[in-house]
């Protein structure tokens, strides 16, 4: 298994380089450092001298890929690509264009993201699986049809509707929880109830349909017929046989997104004023702080690759037939 993981990590390197090159091209070839500087220095009374000084201070005055004025390794090292992209490989995210240490900010902001994402995932998982099992139990009946229609309807509504509607109903009309905001420690709970509730409701449609299809696929298999022919009850077949075997794709589907939970949700965090990584990224995009966007894209890629490796490992744990070579 160790060999396999090592191989997967090696495979990840070209992917990371590719992503890195792509983001570098997007941010530095499309927008010149001068343009980035002008954005950060403001609209009023910006001089070329200030732009140059800003670029120098942040290392944007180097050439993009090759520094012909340097010798030896510095030809590569004294370039924007090395300074801004290669350093990401050893997790040196550097300083944001607004002058803050990115690594420090990421460490601070991943916890509020996780505080929403983790309960949303767990509660959502329980509810979606329960609904899916229920619809599968009543498959091909009116209950199932109505359930599927209900799920499609839930899926078809924009997430913004759930957020605004939820805020209006729960916070404005019923006045049960704050509309938005966040606090540290236990005080955070009252701010998390609504976003978690909305995230769960929003996920019911797609989640239930996905798990329903997994269970239906399983229920058609021969071992289910064998179990039924042995005289087992429908409930027993569903929970003891179908559910257990369908857990493999469910588990792998969950494991792959686990690392990404740290990255938070762009819209939910923004609407509920949660200071997580989702709003960090969206703020950086809006203020064109490319140093942060690059770091977040890189981090997202690493976490996704890590999630995929975890998925492969989890396969071996839940399915004895699978061996990693």
């Amino acid at each position: 298994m160790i060999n396999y993981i090592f191989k997967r990590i090696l495979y990840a390197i070209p992917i990371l380089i590719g992503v890195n090159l792509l983001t570098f091209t997007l941010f530095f070839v499309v927008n010149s450092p001068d343009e980035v500087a002008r954005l950060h220095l403001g609209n009023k009374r910006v001089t070329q001298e200030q732009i140059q000084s800003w670029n120098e201070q942040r290392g944007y005055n180097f050439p993009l890929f090759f520094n012909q004025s340097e010798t030896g390794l510095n030809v590569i090292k004294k370039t924007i690509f090395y300074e801004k992209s290669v350093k990401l490989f050893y997790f040196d995210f550097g300083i944001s264009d607004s002058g803050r240490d990115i690594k420090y900010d990421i460490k601070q902001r991943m916890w509020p993201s996780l505080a929403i994402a983790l309960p949303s995932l767990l509660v959502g998982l329980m509810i979606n699986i329960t609904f899916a099992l229920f619809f599968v139990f009543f498959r091909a009946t009116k209950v199932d049809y109505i359930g599927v229609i209900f799920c499609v309807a839930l899926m078809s509504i924009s997430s913004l509707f759930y957020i605004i509607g939820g805020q209006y109903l729960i916070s404005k009309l019923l006045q049960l929880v704050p509309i938005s905001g966040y606090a540290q420690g236990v005080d955070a709970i009252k701010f998390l109830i609504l976003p978690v509730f909305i995230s769960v409701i929003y996920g019911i449609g797609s989640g239930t349909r996905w798990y329903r299809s997994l269970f239906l696929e399983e229920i058609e298999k021969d071992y289910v017929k064998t179990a039924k022919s042995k005289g087992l009850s429908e409930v027993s077949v569903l929970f003891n046989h179908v559910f257990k075997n369908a857990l493999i794709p469910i588990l792998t589907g969950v494991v792959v997104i686990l690392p990404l939970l740290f990255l938070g949700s762009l819209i939910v965090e923004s609407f509920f004023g949660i200071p997580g990584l989702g709003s960090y990224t969206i703020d950086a995009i809006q203020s064109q702080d490319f140093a942060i966007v690059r770091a977040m894209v890189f981090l997202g890629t690493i976490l996704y690759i890590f999630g995929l490796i975890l998925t492969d490992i989890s396969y071996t744990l839940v399915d004895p037939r699978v061996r990693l070579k």
Partner: protein
Amino acid sequence: MINDLKNIFLLSIFLFGCSDNPLNSPYSDNKSTQNILYSSFQERPKHLDPVRSYSSNEYAFLAQIYEPLFQYHYLKKPYELIPLTATKLPEVQYLDSSFRVTKKVKNARYSKYILNIKKGILYQNHPAFFKEKSKYLYHSLGLDDLKNINTLSDFKKSSTRELLSDDYIYQIKRLADNLNHSPISGVMQEYIYGFTEYKEQLSKLNNISGEKRVSYLKNNKMLGIKKIDDFSFSIILKKPYPQFVYWLAMPFFAPMPWEADLFYSQQQLKKKNITLNWYPVGTGPFMLTENNPNLRMVLKRNGNFRGEVYPSLEDKIKNKKMYSKNKEKVIPFIDEAIFSLEKEQIPRWNKFLQGYYDNSGIASDNYDQAVSLNNSGDITLTEELKEKGIHLSMATAASTYYIGFNMLDGTVGGKSNRAKYLRQAITLAIDYEEYISIFANGRGIVAQSPIPPGIFGYQDGIKKYNKTIYSFKNKRIVKKNIEKAKILMEKAGYPNGINQKNGKPLILYFEATGSGADTYSFLNWLRKQFKKINIQLVTRVTDYNRFQEKMINGTGQIFQWGWNADYPDPENFLFLLYSKNGKVKYSGENASNYDSKDFDRLFIKMKNMRNSIEREKIIDQMLSIIQEDCPWIWGWHPKSFSLSHGWVENVESNLMANNTLKYKKIKLNSRNKNIKSWNKANFTLLYILAFLIFLLILSVFFMVRKKDREKIYD
């Protein structure tokens, strides 16, 4: 059962610390009843270092912490400067070429500002000032010292010191430091004697930083700045510049103690994001105790603040000294101000209506809910807001938004009559009254010139108006009709929008930024306006970077831009059309690259004058030149509407003063009472929902049991 459910819910709520507080309160129990002002902010302030900060959302915090020498009188209009940390308004001397004082203004080569500061002003407590055995404890921090330090409040010891003239001098030197990227260093270079030389010296030392740089700034003098004693200093300007005093009222000229600069220059602190840009150090009424602009920013009363007197309209300045009336009313009135980040309009507005924010602006989405027109056509609050005791205050901002022509462009630019008639025709065709009504909910006034209301030289459109667009008919000022614009088009050589020379339709290009629905609606509207005189307008939507590039290179044709006043003087608006500020040639703020010798001559004469009848006449002449030439389509001046709850006292519209938090007062009892009555939790739907879920579970249970017993397998 209903009671049980309620108890369970309440118990869970109590778990996170609420008791007497309404359930939807975003504040903890102990905070909600204190003398705290609650407000929100939409965008994270980028800079809190006064050397760099240049936008209103940054000033909202910065101006409460740092104190420049002067401030604007809170109540007086037109805006009036009064001393803040200064003992009196500056004494200005004129110097001849040998730096000798001269009383003849004509002989004046330089001007000298003598500035005196009050004694006994103390900085907020800060670790940078703390000394142990006459040595600064936190000026050379090692890795071990910072193990448990993550924010400024983690430093256990702090101290203060008295404000000295050195601190103002130090800050002016910081303005000259390229590494600080001060947006006004270019302007100051033009005026402060020795500023350019100092800047050049510093730029040669870009490789030194930290303690050495601070030491350099501290020990090396700028030629034009002289310390007279600990509480007075002088600034020599290269030329007379009466507007300089306004700059002295801006945070750029706030005092900076070298101890703080040295403290924050330590590399280890920067890695922890403890920087001057994040943790300001001032002498003002408030200090920033929590800076988490991703969540909230908290300003607490500065315990060392000397106390200031609430202003009165009867305040007078005699012999440059301020005489206040309200000796007994000492400010600030509030102990704390909590600003919460609220990016989205909906939660922000709802929290204001629930009473959790003491004030709010009016977003376009909430406009109809907030204000309506009464029978006499005046803007008034809606009944819902009136019932809540909310107040509306309106003020026209010292800003202007305009559509500019690039005067370097071959079609719309230049000094020819052809181009002038074309620009005049377009100016006539565009209906800014309609624009304000559609896109600004009526919150604005049509501009006659670049000068907005409240600024000397403003033309109100009644007594004085733009004669190119308006005419006087039947004792009224009316806009010339579209036929006049068509005649101008003919004179320009484009009858019916067709170029007489080549028979092709006239196509013009508008450079636009933005991508939202509002942008596209605006562009559609603009195309229709041009269509009135048969001009085809092609809109080129691009990002702000590309737009800036086009402006800098002078490749754009028609564009939209705006300007917010730095200070309330017509010079700050008319310089936008001074040729030496041309964007292409001089990288200045004259984006339309307008160049008129007559205008320039009058501008130079006007800019150094004090407000007088003579100055007004010159301004009128300047305005008539630009109104005739039409380098801009004189757009509009926005009106600012703001709402505040009835329990907030001393709310005045003063759009030049930024340090207004110290004047605000809260009637706590009224706020607490209203918040409680407006935010009573409604459990009815919750009970119904719980009952339905219970029924659902029960029916599911029976359905499953029934089906399972049927033993019908497919």
